């Protein structure tokens, strides 16, 4: 079973990486969300998985009877889920603030901390430095922000 889960983890990581490499800040955040799930699943898998045997001690016993799932990775993942959520929530709000301040979700255009070199062209041209050449949705439709 672990082998199959390992393949799934690989697929999730690949999807997350592709999203994180994007120019679009929102897609980067989606990638982080998937990556945190993938990481949890990775820890879970590395601790081996067991079907139908939760790590619970029956009420009248001192130690679990028979096989039981590995409790240690579960404890770690429980922490990781909550921390991952905190991180994602903060990153989301921060990105939203960045968008409000800079009016863009294009990370190539966010150059406040590292201003472009005098001779460095602003993000234009092929290979990930494009200005919006094409738009999804109806061209010219006023966005919600633009309407405000």
């Amino acid at each position, binding site marked *: *079973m672990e*082998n*199959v*889960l*390992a393949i*799934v*983890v*690989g697929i999730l*990581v690949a*999807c997350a*990486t*592709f999203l994180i*490499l994007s120019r*679009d*800040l929102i897609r980067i955040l989606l990638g982080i*969300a*998937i990556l945190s*799930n993938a990481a*949890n699943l990775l820890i*879970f*898998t590395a*601790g*081996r*998985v067991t079907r139908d045997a*939760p*790590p*619970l*001690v029956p009420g009248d016993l*001192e130690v*679990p009877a028979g096989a*039981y799932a590995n*409790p*240690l990775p*579960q*404890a770690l*993942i429980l*922490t990781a*889920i909550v921390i*991952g*959520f*905190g991180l994602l*929530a*903060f990153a989301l*709000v921060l990105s*939203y*603030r960045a*968008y409000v*301040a800079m*009016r863009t*979700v294009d990370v*190539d255009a966010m150059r406040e901390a590292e201003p472009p*070199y005098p001779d*460095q062209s602003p993000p234009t041209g092929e*290979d*990930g430095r*494009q200005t*919006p*050449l094409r*738009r999804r949705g109806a061209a010219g439709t006023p966005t*919600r922000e633009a309407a405000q």
Partner: protein
Amino acid sequence: MMLPAVISGFALGAVAPWVVRAVGARAHWLLAVLPAVLFVYFAGFLPGVAEGQVYRFATEWVPGLGVTLSFYVDGLALLFALLISGIGTFIVIYTGGYLHGHEQIGRFYVYLLSFMASMLGVVLADNAITLFVFWELTSLTSFLLIGFNHEESRSRRAAVQALIVTGGGGLALLAGLLLMGAVGGTLEISELMTQPEVLHGSPLYTAMVILVLAGAFSKSAQFPLHFWLPNAMEAPTPVSAYLHSSTMVKAGVYLVARMSPGLGGSELWFYALVIFGAVTMLTGALLALRQTDLKLVLAYTTVAGLGTLVMLIGLSAPLGYKAAAVFLITHALYKGCLFMSAGAVDHETGTRNPLELGGLRGAMPITFAAAALAGLSMSGIVPFIGFIGKEVMYEATLHLGPVGGVVLTIATIAGNALTIVAAGVVVLRPFFGERRKTPKHPHEAPVELYLGPCVLAGLGLLAGIAYPLTQDSLTAPMMGSMAGTMPDHRAAELYLWHGLKLPLFLSLLTLGLGIAGYVYWDRIRESLAATLRAIGWGPDLGYDQVIAGVEWLSFRQVRVQQTGYLRHYLIVTFTVFAAFVVWTLMTVGGGPSAFEMPAVRLTEWVALGLMVMGAGAATLVYSRIAAIAAIGVVGYAVALIFVMFSAPDLAFTQFMVETLTVVILVLVLMRVPLEVRAFRGLGARIRDAVISIAVGVVFTLVLMGVVQGDLDLRLSEYFAETSVPVAHGHNIVNVILVDFRALDTLGEIFVVTVAGLSTFALVRLALFKRKGGAGEGGGA
């Protein structure tokens, strides 16, 4: 006894400002007691050393690394120690007069006395690491002293330049010393020098010689690294007289002499020393004549003198060493004296330009007398030590053989003749001829300023007249150290009258050439200046170009490394990660060995399928709503997996968190424009897809490798077994979280709290701005 003697200078330096504050303007007389006492202490070694004894003192420092604070007194070390402490005494006194009333004179004494201690450490150290530490300390104190007038940009540049050149050379020296230590099996130089055959036989011999000589040549201002020394004349005159003529710049000469028994004797060593030394001698002497500043004239003749010393050591035993030993004493005595008297002239008249000076012998008779004696020694006139020095120098060069001997002798005659011209410039020009108008009306300098020059000039005369004493107590032991043998008084024999032999005629020829050169000095100077202007480039300018080149290079490098694009950094990170893990899996192993298809239930297939499809959809769709929904699907599918594989607590938490995540995603992202503008081009997408797949594959391989290996369950079993008996909880996962690892959980609660507060703060910030009606930031 030796360790306190060496480091006493640091101790006195540390309290010097308070001594100055307590004693006032006469503090220099008190501070000079220490170097004087040290001089007497070192002089106590003279009789023993003259008989060939050596003294070794060792204190443990870092025994684990073979580093000891060991000191070694032999003829070579003792002569240098005497020069350092003896001249140091007069320099401290001189400083009191020269910087009289300077408000930061206390700081100056700190540097000066620390330098003296560092320099004593260099010449007395036996352990290579100890030598290196003191060596770099002299570079540092020299940096501080050159930059003493730190308000002047020229001083700052000169200080940094000297530090870069000498400090960089010091690093080369360290590498060389460590190589020697590795080959010789010890870091004690005295032991290394007894095994020349081991050092010569090593394949690393060439590297050792080059590295050690790089350190020595940079410190002793050998061509083409000589440029820092004239620039160092920005320092106050006591520094120039002490560090940059008589002591620190001779550290390189000392090192070459010290290493001669072990490293010397090869062709590489001989040619490196003789060629670099001779070229430096001629370059320095020639450039000295172009200067119109007494200190610069002296600085360039110092470069020439250092070149001469290196060349003579290269000529090796016995004649080269004899000439080097005599010339070392000669040069230290006359150069220290002339620097100090030039400083006195500057102090009294307000100028150091020999063209503006003249006829001072009446106004400054004592300074004149000292300078004249030193100038005579510099010119090599009977019966000064300088005369003996020149005689043995010619003996050494003539001894070399028909071709090399003639070439080297001619070069030496030229160097010495040019030096005589320089002596005329610094002694005859200011003191003879017509009195000229100077910025200040000249008076005799105070006693502090002429005491040192008088004593040093007198010693130059004395050392010449009492030459048997010089020979027995100073030069013969030093020659022994350089040759690695006992002092050989027969080989070291000096003569004031050598008979009507070739060296005497060469001396007369040199003198004649020098006098002629002095007469035509104005013309020589101008044509030299014109030539240099025509060349228009020199090592000093080259230094600037190198620095500018380094700056350019680092700028280009930053441009490549720090593009400012987040994706570039991420691409590098992911690629390096994937490549390194694959490389490790291939070289070290640890990847999966086999793949067995396990039995997977239908419900599990569904959950896994949902997960993969969700992730794929989130990656491929551009609609925000669809992507958020897909993310939710991934999260819920993970929760399902947790349910199926016996993790009810995880599933419960995951369901809750995933729901919240989707809610927040929708809340926030719906405020951002729905159409996505930031597209990657097709090429970029293919590149990113390749990187992503590689990263995913790496994760899969590593995880498969992990699950196919052994699992250490001891900790899990411990928790399971102790959960009820110790912690009274039946849910093992909960017990781990709130009991066994309660502190971790507390930390987690803090993290989540801080994240929540920050999120709240960011949201509130937006609200307030909106209420205030202020524009929300600038457009991008």
